[in-house]
């Protein structure tokens, strides 16, 4: 456990203090809210349940979309990655779809799914799919030949090998892919909310901006930041827990 970074936190306090002074002194309240106002709005938003409600809504589509992407990405990645033929067959399709940014699909998704949860779920899933799929492919291809041979000579079926050899061997890569996807999914999800302006923290921020409620807006940004941070920390913990057998060099710090 690292010791608490006193200097770093002091610096944060210092910056916040300077901002407070600066905003008051130069009367910037129309452009940038005072940190004290943001903290007040934050406390209010949390205690009244508004902020947590919006975050909850965001998390709903986020979790569903990410979950879909993880399931599909891993399964597809393992299956395709274990067969040279499948890999080649799907390569051009994957290379074609992969560079298309999910955010560019938001307008299309709105037309197809409307403005609600299904639309957000779709774009989040699409965005999150590719890093996981590619990383799973990479991990599946890299699985140690020796492990495969041992499994084969032990009479394990092809499917069995997929599950008990390829999958664990690919897990470090998959973990990296999930981490990348997780932050990408949050970005895309909040974007979708911002663009459609119906529900979720993204649309909440949009509304606060239009209403010029700057402290509330910044409070929402802070909450979103914490959300992103919490997701990342949770994933790293999970990674360390499930992948305890991986050497230090391969896991994220």
């Amino acid at each position, binding site marked *: 456990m690292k010791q608490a*970074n006193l*200097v*770093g*936190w002091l*610096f*944060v306090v210092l*910056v916040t203090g300077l901002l407070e002074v600066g905003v008051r002194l130069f009367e910037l309240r129309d*452009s*940038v809210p005072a940190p004290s106002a943001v903290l007040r709005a934050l406390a209010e938003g949390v205690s009244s349940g508004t902020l947590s409600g919006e975050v909850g809504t965001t998390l709903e589509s986020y979790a569903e979309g990410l979950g879909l992407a993880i399931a599909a990405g891993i399964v597809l990645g393992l299956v395709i990655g274990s067969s*040279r*033929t499948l890999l*080649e*067959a*799907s*390569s*051009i*399709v994957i*290379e*074609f*779809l992969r*560079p*298309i*940014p999910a*955010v*560019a*699909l*938001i*307008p*299309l998704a*709105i*037309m*197809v799914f409307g403005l609600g949860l299904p639309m957000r779920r779709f774009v989040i899933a699409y965005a999150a799919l590719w890093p996981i799929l590619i990383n799973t492919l990479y991990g599946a291809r890299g699985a140690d030949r020796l492990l495969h041979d041992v499994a084969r000579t032990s009479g394990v079926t092809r499917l069995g090998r997929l599950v008990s050899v390829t999958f664990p061997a690919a897990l470090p890569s998959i973990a990296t892919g999930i981490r990348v996807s997780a*932050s990408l999914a*949050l*970005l895309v999800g*909040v*974007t979708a909310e*911002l*663009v459609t302006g119906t529900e979720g*923290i*993204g649309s909440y*921020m*949009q509304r*606060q*901006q239009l209403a*010029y409620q*700057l402290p509330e*807006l*910044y409070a*929402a*940004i802070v909450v*979103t*930041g*914490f959300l*992103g*941070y919490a997701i*990342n920390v949770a994933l790293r913990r999970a990674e360390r827990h499930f992948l305890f057998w991986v050497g230090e060099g391969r896991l994220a710090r």
Partner: protein
Amino acid sequence: MTAAFLNRVGRRLLGAVVFGAALGIWEAWARSEPSFLFPPVTAVLERAWQVWPTTDFLTSVAASLERLAAGYALGAGIGIAAGLLMGSLRAARRTLEPLVEFLRAVPPVAIVPAVIVVLGLGNGMRIAVIAFAVCFPVLVNTVEGVRAVAPETRDTAAMLHLGLAETIFRIYLPAALPSIVAGLRVALSIGVIMVVISEFVGASDGIGHYILFQQSQFNVPEMYGGILFLGLLGYVLNRLFLLVEDHLLSWHFRAAGEPTR
């Protein structure tokens, strides 16, 4: 014609055939069950063929690229500078770490409303948002790259009596370059995403704006065309990046015994 060669060609063809088949299925299905939302491939390509070469469209693309370039350069510059600082000086790293970790966790889209309040709806806002998003992957990778510099390398710099600035720019920077470039690559795709996002709000040109506008006008084939173009653009940019990377890092690849791409 060796078996291996035929093998490779065959495999390439397989990929192309599968891709073509997928397009064919889409085409057939779209024609048999005409759907407003899913036009035939040929319709999309036809519109693309007409729209893409026009001055209007190309100017729009140029506008997007300009914003991307400016935001990317700004973000990368800040990321590398701050990264070198934080990587080389323990004090700097410890001081800035919590702030950086927090800012980094904020999805860049979340700052768009705040930046709009300060900078309005123009290019300044877009470049700022792109730079914000680009800077963090670059920073993190730069810090990692510098910290990974081998002790022998650091000691050699000390033995050569290199001052701090010299050590950072002549030793740490080249040594960390592979890691920095990896960060720059990630930052490029994030940059493209942010250009699109920033053009969704209050833009009058740009590819992101084009896609949204076509959607609002229910010009579905044009909208697909815009999406397709964006995908192609992303692909081309990535290829170009790999070329530059090869050139910059040729010494690294050869030193590590890896074949250059």
